[in-house]
């Protein structure tokens, strides 16, 4: 259970960064940390003691393999995360072009 708790602490570090940091770059990094923690948590749920990877080969019993379903879902999630990170970076660069700063308290005047 302590593994789950450490993974949850990693997620909470990400939330802390989003809530307190005023730098857009740090906020993007915090969103990345939360994504890592969520993916890792799903794979931790799938692990089975004394098991092997879910690829069929000679001499490997099917009943000794880890759960392949969360692995498949997390694989899609990682790829989507890359796309959203690229889009966040593009938005941040656009804001920098307009306001000449990454500080979110100075970007508050959202007009025009």
């Amino acid at each position, binding site marked *: 259970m302590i593994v789950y708790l450490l993974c949850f602490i990693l997620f909470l570090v990400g939330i802390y960064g989003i809530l307190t940091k005023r730098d857009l770059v740090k906020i993007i990094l915090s969103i990345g940390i939360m994504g890592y923690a969520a993916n890792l948590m799903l794979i931790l749920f799938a*692990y089975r003691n004394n098991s092997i990877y879910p690829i069929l080969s000679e001499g490997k019993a099917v009943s000794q393999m880890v759960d392949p379903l969360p692995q498949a879902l997390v694989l899609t999630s990682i790829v989507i995360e890359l796309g959203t990170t690229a889009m966040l970076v593009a938005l941040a660069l656009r804001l920098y072009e307009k306001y000449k700063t990454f500080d979110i308290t100075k970007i508050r005047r959202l007009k025009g």
Partner: protein
Amino acid sequence: MPIEIWLIFILCVMIIASIAALEIKDILSSIIAIGVVGLGVSLSFLFLQAPDLAVVQFLFEIFALIILVRAFVKKEYHQHEESKTNLLISIVTIIVLGLLFLLSLPVFQNLPAFGKPLMTVSEYYLFHGALQTGAANLVAAIILDYRAYDTLGEVTVLFTAVIGALSILKIRSKEKNRETSNE
């Protein structure tokens, strides 16, 4: 050494690296610290018997580092702007998150223990996957056969995100061209 000890070690390193990434002033150092976190995730995927995921996470990490360094390191904004965080907001946030952690402890006690998953759906995939799809890699069998519509949706989301990023950057370059022509 049992696998749980290794995982606890890697997770502690990742937590320290993520706190460092959030607190370091220099932007290049914090991006490198995020790289430590991502490669730690890749390493723990290897320990958790997920080689496909480890490879994909490694590639993702390298691409994300390239994008972040390329985008943010040139801007020299940290030298002349001191970004001090509000101490009161930090303390209140830490207290609230600590309460959240304490209140969610019973949830983790009710989950199945580490290493003993519920495999009600996945047993079917494990025992019938090779016969029904002909794929030796069962993760690939699930992605490309049982959950093919899910993968189609994922590709749609990825395509939309890339189109969005490209169009945002294109607007920027167009406006820059207009400004330079006006001057």
